[in-house]
């Protein structure tokens, strides 16, 4: 019953706060999201990991897995600059980024930084870029296959 309620609420008119709560209860995790979770978990051994599919916030069809936000808290980030941390995450997810994932927002923190500031950043509102992007159709197809 909850899942059918979720399906009715899927259109982009949902407020951000509402979808944030709902995503944690979403029963179905897409294949791309699962892969991302697994890869990050294995490679970075995070203390805390959050992977959010933000495709519904953008100008792509419902059910897409093209826009993600990840929060990784891992001791492996100690001593690394922001750029190096982000590059580490990008390397881990190289395959997904070159096929179906179109946008990846990253927050990479060390355990100390996370405990002193356990906050999640929010993505800015979509400005319709994917509508004008003619390579998006191929990327979404690659995701579904």
């Amino acid at each position: 019953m909850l899942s059918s309620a979720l399906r009715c609420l899927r259109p982009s008119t949902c407020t951000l706060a509402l979808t944030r709560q709902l995503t944690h209860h979403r029963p179905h995790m897409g294949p791309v999201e699962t892969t991302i979770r697994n890869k990050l978990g294995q490679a970075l051994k995070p203390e805390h990991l959050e992977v959010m599919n933000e495709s519904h916030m953008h100008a792509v069809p419902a059910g897409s897995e093209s826009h993600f936000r990840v929060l990784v808290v891992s001791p492996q980030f100690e001593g690394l600059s922001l750029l190096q941390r982000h590059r580490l995450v990008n390397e881990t997810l190289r395959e997904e980024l070159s096929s179906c994932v179109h946008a990846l927002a990253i927050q990479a923190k060390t355990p100390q930084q996370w405990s002193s500031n356990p906050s999640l950043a929010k993505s800015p509102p979509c400005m319709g870029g994917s509508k004008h992007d003619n390579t998006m159709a191929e990327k979404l197809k690659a995701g579904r296959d």
Partner: protein
Amino acid sequence: MTDGVFNQSERRRQKRDPIAFILECLYSKGRSLVPESYLGEEVLWRLLREVSNVFKPRFNLYQTLQICTMNSIMRTASRCLRSGAYRTAQTNGELLSGWARLMCSSSAGQKTLEELVKKDRVVIFMKGTPAQPMCGFSNAVVQILRMHGVDSYAAYNVLEDQDIRQGIKTLSNWPTIPQVFFNGEFVGGCDILLQMHQSGDLVEELQKLGIRSALLDQEK
């Protein structure tokens, strides 16, 4: 450095009137993608006069060694015009010497991008333009720069040119857009710029570039 792109009739026209040929090529292959606001007819003509000065003494274009082939010139020309890299504020002299450098490069493509990122102190690759961003993340970058009072930077719209879009991802080894470069060095994307802004590092970085952030004046 030959290429077999031009057929017999094209080569004959090339010999008879190189300027008209260049114009025709640009117009037919590149013109439709040139953003109107950036370059007018007049500047285009001056550009081509410069090109023809180089080519006039040589009848056989394929013999020139220093300068790349006609085809790659066309591609470079179209790409640069499309990328909107040249703002109307630039003087024509500056514009033309930039062109001369580009024409002498042996491989248009990666090298052009490398020069692009070094040309200005602050360079961003985004979706859309600063006046009209087409992506929330690109917009965030523009807004942050605006907040710091950085108003003279080069912004390239990757949605207009797939070559630039792919090329810059290869050059910086970074898979997403937007991308920010300070002094030719890759800084990061939207997330990194935002975190630098929040932590105060961005003010320092701008100072290193010789740009005084507007936020410093606001505090006073």
